[in-house]
C-alpha cells in the first residue's frame, strides 16, 4: 500500500466513515465546492453530494449549534473550523451547550469538530493557535490531537464513532510533511490511549502533536551526543488523558520533560505535572520540567515565531538539565 500524508489520512478516514454510516455528514465553511482551505475535504462533495457535504455561512456558533441539534436527532456531523483559532467563536456553544447536553438533559451529542491547528507555518496570531487547553478543561468534551498519519486516520474514525463530542485537532505543519502507509482494514485508534513513539530508559518526554517530531529529533541527538536513552510518549488523546501511560514512563525513567507547543501558563503540562506529583512523586529523581511556547500571542515574523515556539534545541537543553539534576 502506498504512503499517504497526514492530510490524506484524515480525508480517507472521513470517506470511510461516510461510506459506512449514512448519518455522517460534513459541515463547514468552503468545504464543499472548494474542498476546504487546506483541501482536507477535497472531492467529498462530488462523492457524497450537497446533502452530506454542506457549505455553510461564516458562522462558527451557528454550525456547531446546528451540528448539536442534528446529533440529538441521530445524525453524526463532522464540523470543520477553517482554522481552529475560530473555534473561540463557538466556545459558548461547545462549553455551555454541547459539553453539558448529555449530563443535564440526557441528549446524545455525537459530533466531531475538527480543524487545522498549530504554528511553525508563519500564520501569525489567528492562524497558528493551539486552543486545546480550554476544552480539555471542560467536562463533557473529548480532545484528540494526532501526530502521525496513521493516528490521524485512526482517531478521526474513532472520533466519528464516539457517542460524545470529540474535538479533533489537526496540525497544519504536519498536513503534508508526515506520511505513512495505512494499516489494512478498519483502522480505528482508541481515544484515551497514548503511544510510545520511542522507547527509552534514562529520560522521558511527554508530548503530543507537532512537538512529537521535535522530541524525537532531540532524543536522537541526546542519544548520539550524550549516550542517554530517551523515551517519547505521544499522548494522542488529551481528554481523557492516558494517566497510566504517563505514570508508567515516569516510573521507568524517573526524569520527565513535558513538551507542548501551546503557551505555558494554564497549558496541559501543568495538569500532567500535577498528576505525576500526585501519583508518582516518590519515583522522581528530578523535578518535572516543561518546554512550552512563551506566554505571548504567536507573532508572524520567522525570527519572532521561532523564538516563541519550542524548538528541538530547547528540548535538547532541557533534557541535559534534567539528566544533570
Amino acid at each position, binding site marked *: 500500500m502506498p504512503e499517504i500524508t497526514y492530510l490524506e489520512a484524515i480525508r480517507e478516514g472521513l470517506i470511510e466513515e461516510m461510506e459506512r454510516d449514512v448519518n455522517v*455528514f460534513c459541515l463547514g465553511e468552503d468545504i464543499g465546492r472548494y474542498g476546504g482551505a487546506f483541501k482536507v475535504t477535497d472531492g467529498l462533495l462530488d462523492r457524497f453530494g450537497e*446533502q*452530506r457535504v*454542506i457549505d*455553510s*455561512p461564516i*458562522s*462558527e*456558533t*451557528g*454550525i*456547531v*449549534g*446546528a*451540528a*448539536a*441539534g*442534528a*446529533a*440529538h*436527532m*441521530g*445524525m453524526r*456531523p463532522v464540523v470543520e473550523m477553517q482554522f481552529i483559532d475560530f473555534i473561540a467563536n463557538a466556545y*459558548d*456553544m461547545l462549553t*455551555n*451547550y454541547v459539553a*453539558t447536553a*448529555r*449530563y*443535564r*438533559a*440526557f*441528549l*446524545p451529542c455525537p459530533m466531531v469538530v475538527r480543524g487545522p491547528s498549530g504554528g511553525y507555518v508563519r500564520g501569525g496570531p489567528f492562524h497558528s493557535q493551539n486552543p486545546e487547553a480550554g476544552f480539555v478543561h471542560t*467536562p*463533557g468534551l*473529548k480532545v484528540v490531537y494526532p501526530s502521525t498519519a496513521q493516528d490521524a486516520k485512526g482517531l478521526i474514525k474513532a472520533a466519528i464513532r*464516539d*457517542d*460524545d463530542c470529540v474535538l479533533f485537532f489537526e496540525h497544519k505543519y504536519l498536513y503534508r510533511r508526515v506520511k505513512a502507509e495505512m494499516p489494512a482494514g478498519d483502522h480505528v485508534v482508541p481515544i484515551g490511549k497514548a503511544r510510545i513513539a520511542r522507547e527509552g530508559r534514562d529520560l522521558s518526554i511527554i508530548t503530543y502533536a507537532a512537538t512529537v517530531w521535535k522530541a524525537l529529533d532531540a532524543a536522537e541527538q541526546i542519544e548520539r551526543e550524550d549516550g542517554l536513552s530517551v523515551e517519547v510518549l505521544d499522548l494522542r488523546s488529551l481528554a*481523557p488523558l492516558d494517566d497510566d501511560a504517563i505514570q508508567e514512563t515516569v*516510573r521507568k525513567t524517573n526524569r520527565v520533560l513535558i513538551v507542548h507547543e501551546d503557551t505555558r501558563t494554564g497549558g496541559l503540562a501543568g495538569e500532567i505535572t500535577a498528576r505525576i506529583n*500526585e*501519583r*508518582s512523586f*516518590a*519515583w522522581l*529523581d*528530578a*523535578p518535572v*520540567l516543561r518546554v512550552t511556547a512563551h506566554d505571548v500571542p504567536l507573532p508572524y515574523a520567522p525570527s519572532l515565531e521561532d523564538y516563541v515556539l519550542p524548538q528541538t534545541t530547547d528540548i535538547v537543553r532541557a533534557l541535559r*538539565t534534567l539528566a*544533570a*539534576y
Partner: protein
Amino acid sequence: MPAAKRGEGRGERGQRRRPAPASIAAAPAVASPVPGLSREQLLDLYYWMRLTRTLEERLVALYRQTKVVGGLFRSLGQEADSVGSAYALERRDILSPLIRNLGSMLVKGATPLEILRQYMAKADSPTRGRELNIHFGDTDRGFIGQISPLGDMVPVMAGVTLSFKMRREDRVGLVYVGDGATSTGAFHEGINFAAVQRCPLVVIVENNGYAYSTPTNRQTAARQFVDKALGYGVPGESADGNDVLAVCDVTKRAVDRARRGQGVTLIELTTYRRKGHAEHDNQSYVPPGEIERWERENDPITRYHDRLTSELGFAAAEIDATDDRVRRVVDEATDEAERSGAPEALDALVGVYADPAVQPPLWFREGAAGVVDVHERPEGWGTYSAPASDTV
C-alpha cells in the same frame, strides 16, 4: 384531563403522562365557532393556559416555603403565546422552549409533577437534580431542554430541523426567543443558517417588553422585531401574543409553510411580562401603573375566558369545571412531588460521557481509595542521595 386527548396512543412511556393535544389539522371543523378548532380544542387552550398559571402560583407558594431551592421564573400574562403557538404543532414536531414557555412544554406533554419535582430538585425529577426549573427536554414528546445563554437554541433547532430535511421527515421545529435574545450572535447565526438551508423552522420572538430590566428600546433600534425577517430573507408575521387564537393561527400558517418546504418564518408576538425576571426581582425599573394596566386590560386568560363565554358559546360552569380540574391536577402533583427525595450525591458523577459512564470520586472524599492515601513508594525510596543539581 381534556376530553379530546383521552385514549390517544402515545406508546408505553407516554401513556403515563398527560397527552399533548391532537393536531389542529385533524380536528373536525364542524360545530365549532372557530375554523380549524373543535369545541374541545377551544376548551383545551383554556385548560393549558389555566394549568400554566395555577402551576406557577403553586410554585410561588413552594418557593416561599423554600422548597423550590433555586430561582423561580414566571410567565404570568404570557400564557397565551406559549400555549397558542405550541398547540399549532403536530405531535411529531419539536419545539425548544425558553424560561417563560412552561405552557408550551405542558402542551407538548411535560407534566405538572415533572415541573414540581424539577423545581424542588428531586431525585426523580426529569434531570435527576442536575438542572433547574423548566430546563429539561424529551425528544420523544417533542421538546428540547434549553440552556441559559440566550439565543443558543436557535442554531440547535436549525440543526434539529436540518436533520428533518436531510431525512425527508415530515416534521417541523419551533424555537422561542425573547426580545433580548435577538441581540445575540447565536440568534443571528442560527436563523441565518436555517434560512439559507431552508430548514422547516418557525422562530418566535416573544416581545414581552423587558429583558431582565432592559426595555426593548435599549435592546434594538429596529421599529419592531418582525422587521428583522426582511434581513434574513424569510417571511415575517406578527400577532397579538395575548390572544391565544391569533397566536395559534399565525403559528399554524408558519408551520404549514415549513411543512411545505418553504423554510423559516419569523413571528413576533407582543405580550407583557407582569412579573420580574425571576421571583426575586422587584421590578423597580418598571414605570408606575404599567403592570397594573396590563393586568386590568390585557390579561390573556381573562380575555379568552370572556371570549369563550360571550362569543363562543361556552357556559361559565364549563369553564369553572376546567378550573376545578386544574386545581385537582396541581394538588395531586404537589402531594406526589413532595414525597420524593433528594438525589444521591454520587449520582453527580454519572453521565458526563457515554464512555466512561462514571467519573471516579476524588481521593479526599471519604470512602474513596486515593492515590495519596495508599502511599505508593518505589523500592528503596528515601535512601537515594542526589548529586549536586544544575540550575532548573
